[in-house]
């Protein structure tokens, strides 16, 4: 293994820039880190080079642990986006710099420099100053300079980002052929998907500090696991359908799958992806060799040279929720992106307004269903704090967010939602705002009837609204996050398994959420004085199993057992351990289906002013 990253983490002012990134890059591989700006990809690259210190994790280069080795001794070649050539040195001096530092003899230096100039196609330009050559040429010099001392790994930070399109294509090919020729293990960072696909043996997609998926380009494109990767790479038709025994169902149409992902093991909803080129159009339904989504109307056609892109409008289907392309505000039709070759377009010419039958050649279900958050706000400062926290956690967890506003006149509500959307909009996978007229409970009830949520985030003071909280918990299978004061996304979560009451399910969902936000967790069990030894060892075993599960999920976890009065012990632990989120299981529903918080939770809610996650303990939770 040339490059091994394990659990790299970096924070700037408590903001997670790189979140638990692990990666193996094999010898001679061309690896591309792909992500939008701010995704943390450049920080990862700089950590490998030793230019940015890391907070946690380890870096191995060719088996050597270089985590604490200074940049000078890491034997890496680094190419910067803006070339970073030494302006007062000639091209030749620039290339020879690394060799001079290593005290290589002049004759040998010259030979190596001429070799490199030839390699990057700049023979004869050694005497020029950087200011006398073009941007593309400067980047070639930077590449030669980075290769001169025969580095063990080559790191390229958006090397083509500052160049214009034509030069970029040219240099891309040069880069590929040089890397092939030298066989040097390479990591390139880019936001350009086309570049990534053309250059990479494997691509890793980063978003908000996390390395979401890694794989060969064609695999990531055709069989992504996450919603982000599915929509980030290329154009995607993504919608939520239903799992079936043979495959998936979209509306009334069944698609059988050759391979059924292991994660699909029931009758749950599932995100289904098909690419524009998988859409087949036909004038008659009988002619379609593939399952048909029905008849749609052409909304738009775009001529794109060798092919044609179309956007089609389909009537809404019961039980199907489109994700991408996004539904227009106020619209109820489902949009589908399609693509046809010129021959296909010539055989069946289509204009906007024409109707055509739509078949789908191949669908791909995503492994991870993706979380769905409902943020509820009346615009009060408390609610606003909760919305901010929920938005931040959604961003880290790549959850889809619906922001439901209530309790204000329509016009004020619209303004509030607009500004809240602006505030949160950046970086959220999906954000929808809805205005509800009337009271809180009916509004939530209406909303969750439309689509199930995994988590509802509320900014209510639990002391005053205990009934409301109870009723919201009863409405569905969702979990509940209560926050009434401004707080950052949690870094340390205290998961209470007091009284052995909440079970493994709690630990699982809490673990998943905690992993997404990059926090660590402590499993706490509080025992009453005078418990038997048998009980104690049972608790220990339960906690140990929980810690194992959490670690498996990638959450740094530990167990703690305390004795004493439950309420005070939890409160003390929360404060002394500096935890910023409390996780508790909701009591099981009573026989009449009511959930009463009148026990421990209400006592704790009364004294603690930190975000509290209340987990529904019920078989068949929306998540699994």
């Amino acid at each position: 293994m040339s490059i091994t990253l394990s659990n790299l983490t970096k924070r700037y002012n408590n903001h997670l820039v790189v979140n638990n990134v692990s990666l193996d890059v094999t010898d001679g591989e061309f690896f591309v880190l792909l992500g939008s700006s701010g995704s943390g990809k450049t920080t990862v690259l700089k950590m490998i080079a030793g230019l940015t210190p890391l907070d946690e994790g380890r870096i191995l280069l060719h088996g050597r642990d270089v985590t604490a080795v200074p940049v000078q001794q890491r034997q890496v070649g680094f190419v910067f986006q803006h070339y970073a050539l030494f302006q007062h040195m000639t091209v030749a001096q620039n290339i020879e710099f690394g060799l001079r530092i290593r005290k290589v003899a002049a004759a040998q230096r010259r030979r190596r420099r001429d070799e490199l100039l030839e390699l990057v196609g700049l023979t004869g330009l050694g005497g020029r100053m950087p200011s006398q050559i073009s941007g593309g040429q400067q980047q070639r010099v930077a590449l030669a300079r980075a290769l001169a001392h025969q580095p063990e790994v080559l790191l390229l930070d958006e090397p083509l980002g500052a160049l214009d399109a034509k030069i970029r294509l040219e240099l891309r090919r040069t880069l590929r052929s040089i890397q092939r020729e030298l066989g040097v293990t390479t990591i390139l960072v880019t936001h350009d998907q086309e570049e990534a696909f053309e250059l990479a043996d494997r691509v890793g997609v980063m978003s908000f500090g996390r390395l979401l998926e890694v794989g060969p380009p064609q695999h990531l494109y055709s069989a992504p696991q996450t919603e982000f990767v599915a929509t980030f790479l290329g154009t995607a038709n993504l919608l939520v359908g239903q799992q079936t025994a043979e495959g998936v169902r979209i509306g009334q149409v069944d698609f059988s799958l050759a391979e059924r992902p292991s994660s699909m093991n029931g009758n749950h909803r599932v995100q289904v992806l098909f690419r524009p080129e998988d859409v087949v159009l036909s004038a008659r339904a009988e002619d379609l060799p593939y399952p048909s989504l029905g008849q749609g109307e052409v909304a738009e056609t775009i001529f794109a040279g060798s092919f044609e892109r179309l956007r089609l409008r389909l009537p809404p289907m019961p039980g199907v929720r489109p994700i991408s392309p996004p539904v227009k505000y106020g619209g109820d039709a489902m949009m589908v992106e399609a693509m046809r070759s010129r021959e296909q377009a010539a055989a069946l010419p289509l204009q906007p307004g024409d109707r055509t039958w739509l078949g789908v050649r191949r669908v791909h279900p995503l492994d991870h269903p993706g979380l769905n958050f409902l943020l509820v706000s009346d615009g009060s400062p408390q609610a606003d704090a909760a919305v901010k926290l929920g938005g931040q956690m959604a961003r880290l967890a790549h959850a889809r967010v619906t922001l439901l506003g209530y309790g204000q006149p329509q016009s004020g509500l619209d303004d509030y939602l607009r500004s809240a959307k602006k505030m949160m909009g950046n970086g959220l996978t999906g954000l929808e705002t809805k205005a509800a007229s009337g009271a809180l409970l009916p509004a939530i009830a209406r909303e969750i009837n439309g689509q199930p949520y995994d988590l509802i985030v509320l900014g209510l003071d639990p002391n005053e609204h205990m009934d409301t909280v109870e009723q919201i918990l009863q409405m569905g299978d969702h979990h509940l996050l209560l926050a009434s004061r401004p707080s950052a996304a949690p870094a340390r979560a205290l998961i209470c398994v007091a009284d052995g009451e909440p079970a493994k399910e709690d630990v699982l969902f809490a673990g998943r959420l905690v992993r997404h936000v990059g926090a660590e967790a402590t499993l706490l069990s509080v025992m009453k004085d005078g418990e038997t030894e048998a009980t104690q060892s049972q608790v220990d075993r339960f906690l140990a199993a929980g810690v194992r599960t959490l670690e498996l999920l990638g959450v740094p976890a530990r167990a703690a057992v305390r004795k004493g009065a439950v309420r005070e012990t939890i409160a003390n632990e929360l404060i002394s351990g500096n935890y910023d989120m409390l996780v508790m299981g909701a009591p099981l529903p009573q026989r009449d289906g009511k959930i009463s918080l009148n026990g421990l939770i209400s006592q704790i809610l009364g004294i603690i002013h930190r975000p509290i996650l209340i987990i529904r303990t019920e078989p068949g939770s929306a998540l699994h």
Partner: protein
Amino acid sequence: MTARSSTHSLGLNRVAWGRQSLRAAVLAYLAVLLIIPLLVILRDGLQEGLLGFWRTISQPVAWHALMLTLWTAAVMVVINTVMGTLTAYVLVRYEFAGKALLNAIVDLPLAIPTLVTGVMLVILYGPQKALGAWLDQTLGWRLIFAPPGIILALLFITFPLVVRAVQPVLLNLDREQEYAAATLGARPWTIFRRVTLPALALPMTSGALLSFARAIGEFGAIIIVAGNIPLYTQTAAVFVFGEVESENRAGASAMSIVMLGIALGLILLVDWLQQRQERETMP
């Protein structure tokens, strides 16, 4: 169409007329303020011809004053360039408590009357004062009423010039060149010497030349710190003052012409260097 274009050209004419009168006013102002005095002193100093000019300058007292001025300024420039560059480096690259205050203090010498500077130095280093007496007795160094005092005064006065020339360039300097050098194996000192310093060569030079030009004409601080001892601590500016006092206008004018010539040459050089700097930093 025609009507509109005629009013348009009328407007243009009015602007052009305004521009021209503004230009004339500025030129007249410059002439009265700068050029005419320069011409007058040139005529005054050369009224006995080039030979007379040379006789005045080459007499021992004048010559010594000129040489003293040049060498003390030269020593000051070397120290000031090194220390000023380091100060700028620390101010730009390091974070420490009181940095903002220090940054403000750098400009203080520009605001303090140079006479006051002289007085401060005399109080600190004068032979009767604690520090001055100690230096005199233990090390045998006499600073006040001696050439080292001149250097000290000049260092104080010109301190901001190098700092303020280097600082903005250092601030805009592309750190990536330094990072690139580090990835290529260069250690911090090598990076400073081979990457950072060459990029600062131009601002350092222009700061140094400005300090030199400023030092040539210094009077107030020097007369307090070094006194007016011919053939020992009398600098060119102090010499001019003495000649004026003794109503020897030719001597005063001749020395003034030399000082003017040096200053003008340096200013033109600095101007040229700064233009080059701008060209280089342009993308």
